[in-house]
């Protein structure tokens, strides 16, 4: 028996589904081929591990809850939701982001660069720099100067 054939039969042997006529030839191969034997042992250990796996029981009151949901006419989650609707929310988010970027760049394009700089300068609250003449601070200082002169 070739190793590739033996490999295919490992699962069937473990599950007790290997036909009688293949049994002897399979076991003979396992006795002489260390590589296939190691694979077989690994799969058998895995099978034993599954036997020890936790068995979960339905939570207390499960059937009562099912019957209550049925009598209240609860709609089943996700049932009847077409696949395209699942992608619709992702598409909506992308549209909103793209729209935000486009509208933001359109607003910025509306201002000439110098004017934008003037606006930023007029809102400057940096008290350590000399106040630009058109800024709020500049207007305040001018008013104070006139008042002091009086």
């Amino acid at each position, binding site marked *: 028996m070739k190793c590739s054939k033996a*490999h*295919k039969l*490992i*699962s*069937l042997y*473990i*599950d007790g*589904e290997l036909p009688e006529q293949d049994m002897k030839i399979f076991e003979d191969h396992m006795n002489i081929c260390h590589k296939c034997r190691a*694979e077989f042992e*690994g*799969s058998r250990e*895995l*099978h034993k*591990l*599954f036997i*020890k*796996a*936790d*068995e*979960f*029981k*339905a*939570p207390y009151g*499960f*059937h009562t*809850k*099912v*019957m209550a*949901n*049925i009598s209240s006419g*609860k709609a*089943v*989650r*996700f*049932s009847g939701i077409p696949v395209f609707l*699942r992608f619709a*929310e*992702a598409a909506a*988010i992308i549209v909103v982001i793209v729209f935000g970027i486009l509208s933001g760049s359109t607003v910025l394009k509306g201002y000439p660069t110098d004017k934008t700089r003037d606006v930023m300068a007029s809102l400057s609250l940096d008290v350590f720099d000399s106040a630009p003449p058109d800024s709020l601070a500049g207007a305040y200082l001018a008013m104070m100067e006139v008042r002091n002169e009086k």
Partner: protein
Amino acid sequence: MQKQEDLDFIARFKSGDKSVFEELVQRYQDRIYNLCRHMLGSASDAEDAAQDTFIKAYQNLKKFRPEASFYTWLYRIAVNTCLDYKKKPFFESLFKSSTEGEEYISEPVSDQPSPEKLFKSKQLGFALSKSLGKLSLKLRTVIILKEIEGLSYEEISEVLDVSVGTVKSRISRARDELRILLKDFTEQK
């Protein structure tokens, strides 16, 4: 025997006795919940999926054909419901943390006498659940139906609506991948 009793319940249901459905739920709730729990990992998702499975079964029981077994039909609904949960909407997946594989280990195994053995057994159980979580949905489903639920190749082919040959090859591939994943996991420790 069980199959005949199921068919009797279903016949009564179809003739208008809806209350008989509760008997069917009680009969299969543990198996369906166990399947969902191993498929989804999280206890709350498993409970929701198992609830949805029975609600869908109730809504479609009139269409059930007695040539098939009721439990393979129910398993098919449960598997599809779990696959739906795995493909949960984008928003939900963003805000819900994944507990996959973290809630498998619950009660200690009572026939493990020493703490070392118990620890090793828990570690292996944890490794198995983690490795299961890394398998593709197709392979995970087929190996859970075989190893956890103990279905035959024919029953699995009925549940998944694929040929017995496909079931055999998927089980073999699942075992190959799990062996490698478990080896990686134990070597990391």
